[in-house]
């Protein structure tokens, strides 16, 4: 892929805080118009990575190009064409929705009438129009994040960076949020977000899994699912905990993950796995209702990749 088609390109990007390596040699390529999700557990280095590529934090080493600008050499160059929504609340609580948006419009020197038009349109779309005069501090968490998104989009950015945008956000606001995000690629906007949620990951076109500052896997959500080693069986049993105990010790079982009243049992490839599981449950005296092979979920893939990655590390 040539450099012009890339919205974000990082090479060996690293940042450490004392002893902890928060981001450890991350190299990623994100094409223009992508919706890219960085998925990982808490403390994996997601927020630090987002801050590094948005120029809000200085990297220790490595390269980062955003929209063709070198963020490491000149963090200011790209800011006019970039939108960034931090994980922590970053608006002014004592200013109204409109005042916050207008302030952001001024910071990016956007034409006033265009800010006015976008503001109306986006507030309408997010069902916030009637709260426009309300102080942001008096809004719910979801509403605050939607205002944050409008502010991050007010400069019509080429690259939009969202750091866990929907963490702690109610489902309805989340839906509004994604309604806006999914429109962006067709306008040529590249969205880079990070999230600990798998359902959100499933909405992305490309994913990268990060743990302990390192990228463990990359690909489309479909490709990620296929990365799961072996087969995943869904086991429904009366006594899920007893079943879990009985299966954990089997040599052919890689991992047992509880999933509501069922177990996801990841086993070595092959037909005999099902009979082996059935036999083990029988010996333990657990009545199994149903065992069937299933398409691995993103969460399965995630768990598998992270545990394997950690074992290597």
């Amino acid at each position, binding site marked *: 892929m040539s450099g012009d088609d890339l919205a974000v390109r990082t090479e060996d990007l690293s940042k450490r805080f004392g002893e902890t390596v928060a981001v450890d040699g991350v190299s990623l390529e994100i094409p223009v118009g992508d919706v890219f999700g960085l998925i990982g557990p808490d403390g994996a280095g997601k927020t630090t990575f987002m801050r590094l590529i948005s*120029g809000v934090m200085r990297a220790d080493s490595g390269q980062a190009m955003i929209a063709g600008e070198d963020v490491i050499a000149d963090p200011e160059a790209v*800011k006019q064409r970039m939108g960034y929504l931090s994980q922590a609340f970053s*608006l002014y609580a004592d200013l109204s929705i409109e005042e916050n948006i207008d302030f952001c419009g001024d*910071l990016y020197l956007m034409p006033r009438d265009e800010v006015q038009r976008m503001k109306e349109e986006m507030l309408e779309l997010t069902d916030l129009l009637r709260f426009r005069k309300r102080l942001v501090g008096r809004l719910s968490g979801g509403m605050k994040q939607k205002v944050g998104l409008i*502010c991050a989009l007010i400069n019509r950015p080429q690259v939009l960076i969202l750091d866990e945008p929907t963490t702690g956000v109610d489902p309805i606001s989340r839906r509004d949020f994604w309604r806006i995000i999914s429109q962006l690629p067709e306008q040529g906007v590249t969205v880079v977000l990070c999230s600990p949620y798998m359902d959100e990951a499933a909405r992305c076109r490309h994913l990268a899994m990060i743990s302990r500052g390192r990228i463990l896997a990359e690909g489309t959500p479909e490709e990620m699912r296929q990365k799961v080693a072996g087969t995943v069986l869904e086991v429904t049993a009366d006594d899920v905990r007893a079943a879990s105990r009985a299966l954990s010790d089997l040599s052919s079982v890689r991992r047992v993950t509880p999933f509501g009243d069922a177990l996801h049992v990841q086993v070595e490839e092959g037909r005999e796995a099902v009979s082996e599981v059935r036999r083990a449950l029988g010996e333990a005296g657990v009545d199994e209702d149903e065992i069937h092979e299933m398409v691995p979920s993103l969460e399965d893939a995630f768990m598998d990749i992270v545990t394997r990655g950690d074992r290597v590390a």
Partner: protein
Amino acid sequence: MRRLLAVARKETLHLLRDPRSLAAALVLPVGLLLLYGYAVNFDLEEVPFAVVDLDDTKSSRRLIEAVDSVHGFILLDHYYDADIAHELFARDAAMAVIVVDRGFEQKLKSGQEAPVQVIIDGSNSSLASTAATYCQATVEQAGRRLIRDEALSKGIPISLLEPAIDVRPRVLYNPDLKTQVFLVPGLIGVILMLMAALLTSGVVVREKERGSFELLAASPVSPRELIVGKLLPYLVLATLDVVFVVVAGRIFFGVELQGSPLLLLGVSVVFVGSALALGLLFSCIMPTQQLAMLLSFLATAMPTMLLSGFAFPVRNMPWILQQVAMILPATHYIAMMRAIILKGVGMDIIWRPFLAMCAITLVLVVASVRRFSKTL
């Protein structure tokens, strides 16, 4: 420029949305002026004194009567031993004890020197020196009157008795030598320095504490636009404070503005600019609002009160402290305030301290801009 104005407008909104802090910012300076203006007073209002009259003659009694009749002198009691001074001073009952020795009248009548001892409580040196001068003058004057009456009764011409040189001091600018007149212009400087630095000490670090710093950091706003934009609304607020304290000084302490109000305002804007920039500088480098406020308080209150010439003349300080005083904006400001308020002078006289203060302000603004970092 548009970004700068946007930042200024936003800061103004913050101020207006926090009416309690805004009210405090406007009322506190006047409150401090009243507190210090009334508390700090080096004036000698009254001199309670005791008398040890060992002579107990018509002349000695007339001398004491004459002293007692002077405004401010309050005769407590008569004693018969000069040692009573220790006891009276220990209890803070008297400031002076006047001892008239035996033979006072006799010496007076025979034309000899007739010494009268005045014992002063020196534990407060500034009050004591005033009291000593005051007592000496009063007793001497009363004594002169005695001699004159004596001479008249003997038919000696008075002209022979009067001193050849008669010193008549005339005090300009503060004819009553009131402490407040000296104090208020300096006090205005101290209070404004303190308040203005406190006002801005939170404005950058607050953005970090509340998370909005990330919004600014990710935007194309420059440190210069941000710092100057934040400075502007506070410059207006602090200028209002200047007007308030100057008017309060006139109303409560009778300190009249002799010079040009416009000159005073112009000089004051540059001065509060330096204090606001200092607060901003601390706000850029300190990790929390509390620490920034504490540092602002420590860095302004002590040096300004001690070294700026507010109460203690800079020219009496050791060389090294004089150099420190010169880098304090308040030193130049207080000198200019006294000149403008009390002496009514113009820019032609005060241009030197004015330029020095402008330079300090500029350095502090540039330092704030430089120390402001757009990264976390």
